[in-house]
């Protein structure tokens, strides 16, 4: 199950719906928005945008890559778009596998691949402007 949503992610349901009798391990990775501070200003929230449907397809590709590499029963990835407030989940990855090794490894692989190939971008909204993460482009006033 691969989904891009524009509302809060219901982490619990995404995890429990991955439970299966043929899987003895369910690894969950939750990425949450982290707030950095500098020079008296702070990040108010993050805002995500995506190139769809390419982003949706890339999430599915990651799922296929995982199935090529590990024995897994279920892969679920949900990524949120729009405004995400501090400490809220922006991405949830759940991998159910017969054994814990592949579950852990595949969930780590999924988040690393999301950061490599899925066309999603975030900007930090600061009190004095915004910054595109990963690009040297911002509107914050110089210190």
């Amino acid at each position, binding site marked *: 199950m691969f989904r891009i949503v524009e509302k809060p992610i219901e982490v619990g349901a995404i995890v429990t719906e991955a439970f299966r009798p043929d899987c003895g391990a369910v690894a969950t990775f939750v*990425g949450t928005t982290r707030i950095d501070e500098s020079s008296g200003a702070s990040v108010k929230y993050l805002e*995500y*945008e*995506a*190139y769809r*449907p*390419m*982003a949706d*397809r890339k999430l599915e590709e990651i799922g296929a890559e995982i199935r090529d590499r590990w024995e897994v029963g279920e892969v679920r990835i949900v*990524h949120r778009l729009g405004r995400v407030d501090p400490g809220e989940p*922006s*991405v949830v990855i759940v991998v159910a596998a017969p054994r814990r090794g592949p579950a852990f490894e595949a969930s780590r692989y999924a*988040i690393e691949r*999301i*950061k*490599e*190939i*899925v*066309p*999603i*971008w*975030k*900007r930090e909204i600061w009190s004095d402007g915004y910054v*595109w*993460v*990963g*690009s*040297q*482009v911002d*509107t914050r006033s110089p210190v």
Partner: protein
Amino acid sequence: MSKVTVLFFGAAADQAGARQIEVPVGDRAKLAEIWPVLTDMHPGLAPLRDTLAFAVNGEYARMEDAVSAGDEVAVLPPVSGG
């Protein structure tokens, strides 16, 4: 004249001052030929060149790949999901 649609995302949309434009494209054009047209129209894009990736019709593309009339070209800054 035939055209392609060009989509800008993230920092590239900021630098272009646009999210979607149409640009003319010749017969047997390559993606590389689109870039100078984009920077002529939106000079703010030029400094981003080395950081950008491109997609044609929703799949990553290289500069030597072909583009033809009606294609959708996307200008993609470094992704930062997660």
